[in-house]
């Protein structure tokens, strides 16, 4: 029993070392820009770089749009499947899982073939069109996480009975969605939103191949040409992801939308 416990701790320690040592090493390296002493010069250099601000801002806007349009697609879909079409649930689950199986590069090449400037829907024919295509591809990419987060939240509140309860009290669809369903799946929506945010902020393939000035390609560019800044950027990217995860935990912990059930 005691040996088992020790072995468990050793396994955890190995995991922690494997994960944290490179991170600590990267962080330590990012502070070594000034010769002979630790400094935040690399971070200063990153933050003062105009391209950093532009690409970061661009990715933020893309992430926000992805979250808004993604949720507009996912919440009603998950709701409708739960309420009226439970038989097609396995099909929807399969479709939402596809982005995990199909590599991003395949998806984006598919988009480029379908929506190039000489196609029927020439998304790539203009900057705004390409940006729209990028948002659509981000939505595809984050679909497995968004759908599951929302669907799990819906399972917890028994949407069917809540809908019927609201309906018999005279409510119409917009009221049911906005006042009875949406607030009760908010924790799922936010969880999906934070994961989406983290994915979009670090995504490289889609943005690079669609030639958009996003944060992912910028990270690659800096990594190829500078020494200390890439380390600082890696730490910043980690911080963003961790912040998103932390917020996700907070939302689920402090959510008071506990379901009313026997």
């Amino acid at each position, binding site marked *: 029993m005691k040996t088992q416990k020790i072995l468990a701790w050793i396994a955890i320690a190995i995991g922690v070392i494997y994960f944290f040592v490179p991170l600590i090493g990267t962080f330590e390296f990012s502070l070594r820009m000034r010769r002979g002493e630790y400094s935040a010069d690399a971070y200063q250099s990153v933050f003062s770089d105009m391209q950093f601000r532009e690409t970061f801002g661009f990715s933020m806007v893309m992430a926000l749009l992805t979250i808004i349009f993604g949720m507009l697609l996912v919440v009603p879909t998950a709701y409708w499947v739960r309420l009226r079409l439970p038989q097609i649930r396995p099909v929807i689950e399969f479709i939402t899982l596809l982005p995990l199986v199909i590599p991003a590069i395949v998806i984006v090449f598919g988009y480029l073939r379908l929506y190039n400037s000489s196609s029927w829907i020439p998304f790539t024919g203009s900057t705004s069109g390409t940006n729209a295509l990028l948002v659509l591809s981000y939505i595809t990419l984050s679909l497995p996480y968004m759908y599951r987060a929302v669907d799990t939240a819906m399972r917890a509140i028994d949407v069917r009975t809540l809908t*019927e*309860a*609201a309906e*018999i009290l*005279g409510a119409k669809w917009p*009221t049911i969605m906005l006042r009875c369903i949406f607030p*009760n799946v908010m924790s799922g929506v936010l969880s999906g939103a934070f994961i989406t945010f983290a994915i979009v902020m670090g995504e490289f393939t889609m943005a690079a191949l669609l030639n958009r000035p996003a944060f992912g390609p910028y990270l690659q560019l800096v990594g190829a040409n500078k020494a200390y800044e890439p380390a600082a950027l890696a730490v910043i990217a980690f911080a963003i992801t961790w912040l998103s995860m932390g917020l996700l935990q907070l939302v689920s912990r402090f959510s008071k939308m506990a*379901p009313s059930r026997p």
Partner: protein
Amino acid sequence: MSFLVLDNIKKSFGQTQVVKDFNMSIEKGEFVSFLGPSGCGKTTVLRMIAGFENPSDGTISINGKNQNRLKTNQRNIGMVFQAYALFPNMNVFDNVAFGLKVAGKPKEEIETRVKEMLALIRLDHLADRYPYQMSGGQQQRVALARALAPKPQVLLLDEPLSALDAKIRVSLREEIRQIQRQLGITTVFVTHDQEEALSISDRIVVMNAGRAEQIGTPSEIYNRPNTRFVASFVGTLNIIEATVADPSANTVKVGDNTVRLREPIGALNVDDKISIALRPEAGSLSESAKGDTAIVGKVISSHFLGSVIRTKMDVGGNQISFDMFNAPDAVLPQPGEVLTLRFSSGDFLIVRD
């Protein structure tokens, strides 16, 4: 004209017909229970009244108005669900106020009505609580107040007590009945619990395989079941296989015993088979019992159940159970003992399929 009329209602899901030719008229202010086993179609009928399901055939009318074409949110019906279905993001006040807000009532009117409803269910001190901070019984009372707040024409109760523990169940069912009487609201209650149905209903509809087997007052349903199903589903009943002894004298043979029935046997001949039923509480072992007939049988087993002693005896191959009230000096009949059970000939019911 009746207030709520279900006229020749049918409902099919695919090839399966779950409700068959259901007819029922409910008067204003009446409390009617749909009683039946799982899958008998009682909840489907309730859901059709609510508008969650559309009848495949037939009409539903309330106060003379056909409801078939109306959507659920246009019917002005209140409903309490088995799973409470309170909105988790709203507190008690907002839950009760929901229907009134949707109807666009003025703020003052909403406040007055919600307070009135919370006083009715005696939970006015919990107006700020959220559903997850309340017990099951409290949540179901809030659900009742929420259903009643918009002054619905009909109240539907879909097994509202099933999820509660036994004690709360009894007190809440009495509370529901008292509130229903106080408001005079037409109520349809769905349950599979016969005690619930018998204790609070004006009338009971016993349903089986999509049909109403019998509609009647609790006393009629219990004492005069029309079919074998009603007889076996409501209460405990001994079904005895007998043979006709003398049709002109209205007597039947149960083993070696010849007993007279009060109910006419009908067009049967000597030695024809007949099923008769007897409630366990009908018989008595006392020699002073006011019974005009008796059967003799051998005791198989006897069990002490607290308030009653239930004894099973064999009479010509039929197992008959009968109950005696417990008394401090009561002696349990012993297996093998021969007993004479006395009862009134009116206690026997002829069971028809």
